[in-house]
C-alpha cells in the first residue's frame, strides 16, 4: 500500500509564501492541502482614515506584479463613490496600460515560472545557456510590456501618473507611434510563444468547476462590466459579496471563497471559458493551436490561456493605439473632484482573475471602510479541490514526481500570495 509524505515548505517560483502538505498512509489520504503562510499585511484596516486620492497609490502596493490592476480597480471604486466617470481618452489609456500589465505578468508566469518545469530545470537562469533564444524572447516581451506601462504611468510597478478621474501625465503621439511599431514587431514573438507552449506536454487532468469572470458584450472584459459565472449567474459589481462569500480557514492567511459550488476558479482560463467569443480573431487562432476549446476543464491549461491572452493584448493594444492616434492625445488633466460621502465598488479582471475593491468615504473624502478581494484567495478552495482529486490519480508515481506535479498544479494557478495576505509552501508531512 502506498505511503507518501510530501512536505514542500515555501513552494518556489510563485509570488509569496505557501506550502503543499500531503500525508498518505496505506493508500489513504490523511492530508492534502495548500497552505498560505504569508505574513498578513492588513491593507483593509490601515487605509481607513486616508484621503481618497491616496487609496490607489497605497493599494497598488498590495502587489508588485498587478499594481496597475490594483490601482485601476481602486480608482474605479473611488470614482464610483464620488460619482465620477472617466473621459474616453482616460478609458483608452487605462485599457492600454492594463494590456501592458497583462502581458508583463503573463510573460513572467509562462516563461520564467512555468517553462522551467517542462525543460527540466529549476529556474530560467540555466536556460540562458541551453535555450538562449527562448530567454531573449521572454526578456524582449517583458521589456515591451514594461516600457508600455512606463510610457503611460511612469513605471510598471506602482505607477505614478494614475489619478482619480484621469492621468497626471500623458504619452506623446510620437511615443505611441514608436510603441505601435514595437507591437507590430512583437507579433513574431507571439507566434513563437504559441508554438512553444503548443509543444509542451501538459499534465492530463480534468475537473470541471464554476468559472467566474467579468463580462462585457462589446469586448473581452478586463475593466468594469458584470460578474458572470459559467453556471449561468450574473451580478452587477456592487453585489460582489454574493459571489465571493469569504470565510477564514486556520491554515491560510488568505481567506477562501465559494459561490454556487464548494469552489470556483478565476483567471485567464475562467475568462477564456466565459468570454471566448470576444477574444481577438488572432487570439482565437492561437487558442486553436493550443487545443483550447471552451469549456476547458484542465487547470494546468491556465498557463496556455495566458499565452492566448498575450496575443489578444498585442492585437487589441494595436487597435487602442490606433484609436488614440486617430483621436489625437488631448491635453486633459484629471477633473476637479467634488468631495462627498459615498460608497463605490470597482472590479477588474487582473492577470490572476477577478479583483474587487470596495470603499466607503466620509464627507471629507476620508476612507472609513475598505474591502479588497484578491483573485488568488478566490482560487484557493478550487486549487485544494483539484489537489484532492489529482492526488489519487498519481499516487502510484514516484514521490518526486508527485511533488513536482502538485507544485506544477499550484504554479498553474499563478498564485500571487503577496496579495495582502501573502501566501504558499508544499509540505509532505
Amino acid at each position, binding site marked *: 500500500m502506498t505511503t507518501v509524505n510530501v512536505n514542500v515548505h*515555501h513552494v*518556489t*517560483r*510563485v*509570488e*509569496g*509564501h505557501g506550502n503543499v502538505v500531503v500525508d498518505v498512509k496505506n493508500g489513504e489520504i490523511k492530508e492534502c492541502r495548500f497552505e498560505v503562510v*504569508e*505574513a*498578513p*499585511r*492588513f491593507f*483593509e*484596516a*490601515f*487605509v*481607513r*482614515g*486616508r*484621503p481618497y486620492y*491616496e487609496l490607489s*497609490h*497605497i493599494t497598488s*502596493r*498590495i*502587489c*508588485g*506584479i498587478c*499594481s496597475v490592476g490594483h490601482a485601476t480597480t481602486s480608482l474605479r471604486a473611488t470614482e464610483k463613490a464620488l460619482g465620477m466617470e472617466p473621459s474616453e481618452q482616460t478609458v483608452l489609456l487605462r485599457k492600454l496600460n492594463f494590456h501592458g500589465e497583462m502581458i508583463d505578468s503573463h510573460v*513572467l508566469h509562462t516563461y*520564467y*515560472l512555468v517553462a*522551467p518545469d517542462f525543460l527540466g530545470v*529549476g*529556474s*530560467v*537562469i540555466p536556460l*540562458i545557456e541551453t535555450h538562449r533564444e527562448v530567454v531573449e524572447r521572454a*526578456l524582449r516581451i*517583458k*521589456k515591451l510590456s*514594461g516600457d508600455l506601462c512606463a510610457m503611460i*504611468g*511612469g*513605471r*510598471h*510597478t*506602482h505607477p*505614478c*501618473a494614475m*489619478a482619480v478621474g484621469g*492621468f*497626471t*501625465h500623458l504619452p506623446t503621439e510620437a511615443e505611441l507611434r514608436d510603441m505601435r511599431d514595437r507591437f507590430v514587431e512583437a507579433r513574431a514573438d507571439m507566434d513563437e510563444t504559441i508554438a512553444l507552449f503548443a509543444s509542451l506536454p501538459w499534465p492530463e487532468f480534468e475537473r470541471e468547476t464554476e468559472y467566474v469572470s467579468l463580462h462585457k458584450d462589446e469586448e473581452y472584459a478586463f475593466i468594469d462590466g458584470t460578474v458572470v459565472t459559467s453556471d449561468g449567474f450574473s451580478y452587477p459589481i456592487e453585489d460582489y459579496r454574493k459571489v465571493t462569500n469569504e470565510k*477564514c480557514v*486556520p491554515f491560510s*492567511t488568505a481567506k477562501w471563497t465559494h459561490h454556487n459550488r464548494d469552489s470556483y476558479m478565476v483567471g485567464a482560463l475562467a475568462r477564456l471559458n466565459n468570454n471566448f467569443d470576444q477574444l481577438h480573431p488572432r487570439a482565437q487562432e492561437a487558442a486553436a493551436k493550443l487545443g483550447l476549446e471552451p469549456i476547458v476543464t484542465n487547470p494546468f491549461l491556465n498557463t496556455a490561456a495566458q499565452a492566448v491572452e498575450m496575443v489578444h493584448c498585442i492585437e487589441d493594444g494595436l487597435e487602442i493605439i490606433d484609436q488614440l492616434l486617430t483621436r489625437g492625445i488631448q491635453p486633459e488633466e484629471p477633473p476637479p473632484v467634488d468631495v462627498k460621502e459615498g460608497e463605490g465598488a470597482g472590479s477588474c479582471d487582473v492577470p490572476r482573475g477577478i479583483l474587487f475593491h470596495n470603499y466607503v468615504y466620509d464627507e471629507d473624502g476620508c476612507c472609513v471602510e475598505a474591502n479588497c478581494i484578491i483573485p488568488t484567495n478566490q482560487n484557493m478552495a478550487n486549487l485544494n479541490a483539484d489537489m484532492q482529486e489529482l492526488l489519487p490519480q498519481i499516487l502510484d508515481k514516484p514521490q518526486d514526481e508527485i511533488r513536482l506535479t502538485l507544485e506544477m498544479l499550484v504554479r498553474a494557478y499563478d498564485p500571487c500570495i*503577496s496579495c495582502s495576505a*501573502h501566501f504558499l509552501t508544499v509540505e509532505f508531512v
Partner: protein
Amino acid sequence: MSDTNTNGKPKVAFFDFASCEGCQLTVVDSLQTHLDLLDAVEIVQFREAMTEKGEDYQIAFVEGSCTRKSDEARLEKIREQADLVVALGACAHLGGVNSLKNLHPLEDVRRWVYGDKADWYETYAARPIGAVIQVDAVIPGCPIDREEFVRVVKALLLGKKPPVPDYPVCVECKLKENVCVLLEGQPCLGPVTRAGCDAICPTYGDGCEGCRGLIPNPNENSMEDVLDEAGLTVEEVLSRFTMFNAYQVQERMAEEEGK
C-alpha cells in the same frame, strides 16, 4: 565568512518578508538590460524565481518588513550567514506602507480584517529590518529603481560604499527642468526626501510621497509650512509624511515625548 564560488563569483541570495515583491521583480527586470550581472555573481537562492536553495551566500538582499515575532529568527539567521545584508526597497528600509497599520491599535487592525478568527494569524507592529538586525547597505524606494540597483551591486562587488545620494529629490527634479508641482498646488515631499529616483513622481505629474525616506537633517518644519501654503490640512500633511515613513514618525514622536 563563507567561501566564494570556485569561479570566484560572490554568492548572492534574495529573501522576502511582508512586501509586494515588486522590488524583487524590479531585480528580475534589471536583467532585460543587464543580463551580464549574472556573469558577475552566482544567485544561490531566489524563491520567487528559482527552485534551487543554497544556504551558502555572502550577500543577502532582503525585501519586506518584519511584521511577526517569528520572522526575527529568520532574519537573524540571514545576518549570521551573510557578510553583507542589503535592505531592498522601502518596506525593508523604512517599514513602508506596512507600518501604516502601526497608526491604529493592533487589536483593532487584526479584528477588522479577520474578525473573531484574528487569533489564528500572528502579527505585531511592522518595522524595518534594521530594527531587528544590523543592515550594511540600503537600496531605497517603492519600488527600488532598476538602475540604482545595478549601481549599488557594482559598488558592493568592488568593495565600495554604495552611492546612494543624501541630497533631496528637488535637485534631480530641477535638473530635469520640471515645473514644480508645489507651485501647481500639489503636495510634494521632494524638498526633504532622499534623491536617487530621478524625481520620477514629479516628472509624471505626481507629488513626491517620500518613499525613499528623509534626507539627513531635513527641515521638516519648513516643509510643513510649504505644504500648508499648498492648502493642505494638518491631517493631510501628516498623511503625506506617514505614507511610507509611519514607523519613523512614530519613533520620533516617542522620542520627543521621552525628552
